[in-house]
């Protein structure tokens, strides 16, 4: 973001560098396996990829399943069921940026579980789905 040498930095730019640096090094950055470990620990049980696949691909008493937008095997682009907008693949093997930002992951679980399940997903459900997604190869 700042291209000058430290000597030429303005105070605002220096502050920016500090803020961005500490934010990027904060708790939000993670790997998919870190997130899986966290969800599994909170669920106090081991994650099951087969259960995750079933959860992802079947509807839960509402119009949509996760797969309605992400596709039944999300190693390629999905498509938003209402708007038609392309959605990048969800499997980490197909998009390494997936499941590397805790806040972003939580935001999307919050929204999408409300739409698909009609409630928040449990840690066990999140762990199962992530465990399955990690097994997928493109």
């Amino acid at each position, binding site marked *: *973001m700042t291209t000058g040498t430290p000597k030429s930095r*303005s105070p*605002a*730019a220096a*502050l*920016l560098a500090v*803020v*961005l640096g500490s*934010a*990027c090094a*904060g708790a*939000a*950055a993670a790997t998919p396996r870190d997130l899986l470990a966290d969800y599994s620990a909170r669920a106090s049980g081991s994650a099951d990829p087969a259960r995750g696949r079933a959860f992802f691909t079947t509807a839960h008493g509402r119009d949509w399943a996760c797969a309605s937008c992400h596709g039944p095997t999300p190693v390629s682009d999905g498509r*938003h069921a*209402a*708007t*038609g*907008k392309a959605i990048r693949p969800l499997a980490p093997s197909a998009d390494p940026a997936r499941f590397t*930002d805790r*806040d972003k992951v939580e*935001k999307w679980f*919050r*929204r*999408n579980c*409300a*739409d698909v399940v009609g409630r928040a997903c449990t840690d066990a459900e999140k762990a199962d789905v992530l465990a399955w997604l990690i097994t997928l190869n493109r």
Partner: protein
Amino acid sequence: MSSALRVAALAIAAAASQSAARAAGAAPADTRASVDQAALHRQECGACHTAFAPRLLPPASWNALMNDLPHHFGTDASVEPATRRTLTSWLVSQGSAGRARPENDRITRSGWFRSEHSELPAGVWSRPSIKSPSNCGACHARADSGAFNEHDVRIPR
């Protein structure tokens, strides 16, 4: 980075660029702040649909939509409170003040939208490649940047 931090970082980045611009006698800083808000808009709103340009709705519609994101046309589109405040003030300030509020605050129900698309044959909207009138990008390649020049229109089969 959390959404709140991201907003804070954007604000600080805008402030930094403002002071740099003032030092260099450059253009007023509003331009840069607006660019950062547009990037946030593309990131947050553009994930599910075209990042609809603010001018496509009047301020009252933007206010109504942004105040009920958990029930956004049948989906939960909620965002962090700080993100919502930043985006709402940007959308409202850049909305088309003179425009009538369309039914359900849907861009596609606006009188100007219907008249601009009145030449299209029936059935175009339902093509699998288009799917919905809200899928601007299917025909307007630069819709996410708010560019809808008629010469750029390519209607997919």
